[in-house]
């Protein structure tokens, strides 16, 4: 089972919490919006990713379970 990060760009307001809590995968662009990689999440990082998603003030960061593992 693999997980993938997604951001809802409409609700995201560039608080930047996610990049603080998951710097391994999330960096911020020049306006403070998160840049996420396309590839599935490393299993080691899943707990951190869950924490980052929970910490997002607008719940814009989504941790989605992949339907078909690649």
């Amino acid at each position: 089972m693999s997980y993938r990060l997604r951001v809802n760009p409409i609700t995201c307001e560039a608080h930047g919490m996610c990049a603080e809590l998951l710097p391994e995968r999330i960096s911020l662009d020049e306006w403070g919006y998160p840049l996420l990689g396309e590839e599935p999440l490393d299993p080691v990082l899943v707990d951190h990713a869950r924490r980052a998603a929970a910490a997002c003030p607008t719940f814009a960061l989504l941790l989605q379970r992949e339907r078909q593992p690649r």
Partner: protein
Amino acid sequence: MSRAQSTYPEQPTRTTRPPVGLPRLLAGVPAHGSLDLSEHHSLHGPLPEMTRFRRRRSELIAEIEQAGLRGRGGASFPTAQKLEAVAASRGRPVVVINAAEGEPASSKDATLTRALPHLILDGGELAAQSLGASELIVAVNDSAIAGFESLATAIAERGTPARRSARIRLVGVPDRYVTGQETALVSHLNGGSALPTFAPPLPFEHGVARRPTLVSNAETFAHIALIARHGARWFRELGTSAQPGSALVTLSGPVAYPGVYEIECGAPLGSVIDAAGGLSAPARALLLGGYGGSWVPAEHLEDLCFSAEQLAPYGASPGAGVIVVLSEAACPVAETARLARWLAGESAGQCGPCLHGLGALATTLETIAGQDAHAATRERVEQLLALVRRRGACAHPDGAARLIQSAIDTFQSEFDEHARYGTCERCLAPPELVLGQPRRTRHLSTRRASLNPARRP
């Protein structure tokens, strides 16, 4: 003989035999006003009774699948697949005819709604019947008054819908670039703002009133109306095997007769321009697919054919059939800067990367086009393009990035010239690309009309 037909062909002929060759959709288009119900029936024959399709509801879908019809709103998605997805979702479906045309360079939907309202309503009714839909909604731009009026007249003319069949509703949509986008339209129809929403859920699962909703372009429904009458084999008589049938294109720029033309899919673009009376000025490039599309240098004009596979090597696609010719008298750098500023203004402003990124792109391109060209570099543009792509809820930033990228690639020599010498004498030429009216208010009021023939005397 030319393979393209103008908007103004001969008078309606009194036959209901399947038309051979072109025009198909644009047969009998009057120069002014619209075809009324009797004229429409004498031209195309009555709406096929669903007896042919009643035995199994999916027979229309099967026919459309065999015909290989693809959506004509720009994304070119197989229509049968979309119908099937709606049919497979839970709940009684809603069918939406999308005639909201945000693209300033396109006027095919305006032509269809103004002149041939019964053809698109036929297609909508057939789709609604085959899906067992409860409602058929026609979405038209607020500014398209002629289309609004001819549709309203046509809906009244068709009379009370039969029991258990779909109620027809005509709805105005604010004039903006993004309002014709599927999720924006559904949001508007649900009483929200006419802005794109985060997907999933897509409209085929949860659309209007959270019901499975089929949203397709008006031209797609016009093709459905003819496929139901004449069959898939007839549809495939024109076009290529991957892209069968005919398509509507909107041609603008320095040609003798700009306008909406019906062409065979896969036809050479040169034949469309010939049908429009040829070029009235030397062309520098062609914009295909609208303001979210791609530029192709005019020297390739002879090789260009209107189909996805033949345009792919040039990084272009037929999209919603928009062809804009840019003359050699215009400065492509200045035009690109103006277009980028307009696209930035048309951002819904919901997603940060699109809001900030398109604005920054427009500013950078304006600097390149302006006096102090050396202050902004093309590397900065490339950097911003990477920050914009695939980072919005809808495809608006992707389309804008595609257009700017293709402008930089196509007009490399002009961009180099600007970087070295600053403004050119062509910068002073009047703007060629039509960008529509600047939007006045952030929250646009909209005209809504509910026409229920059942309640009419």
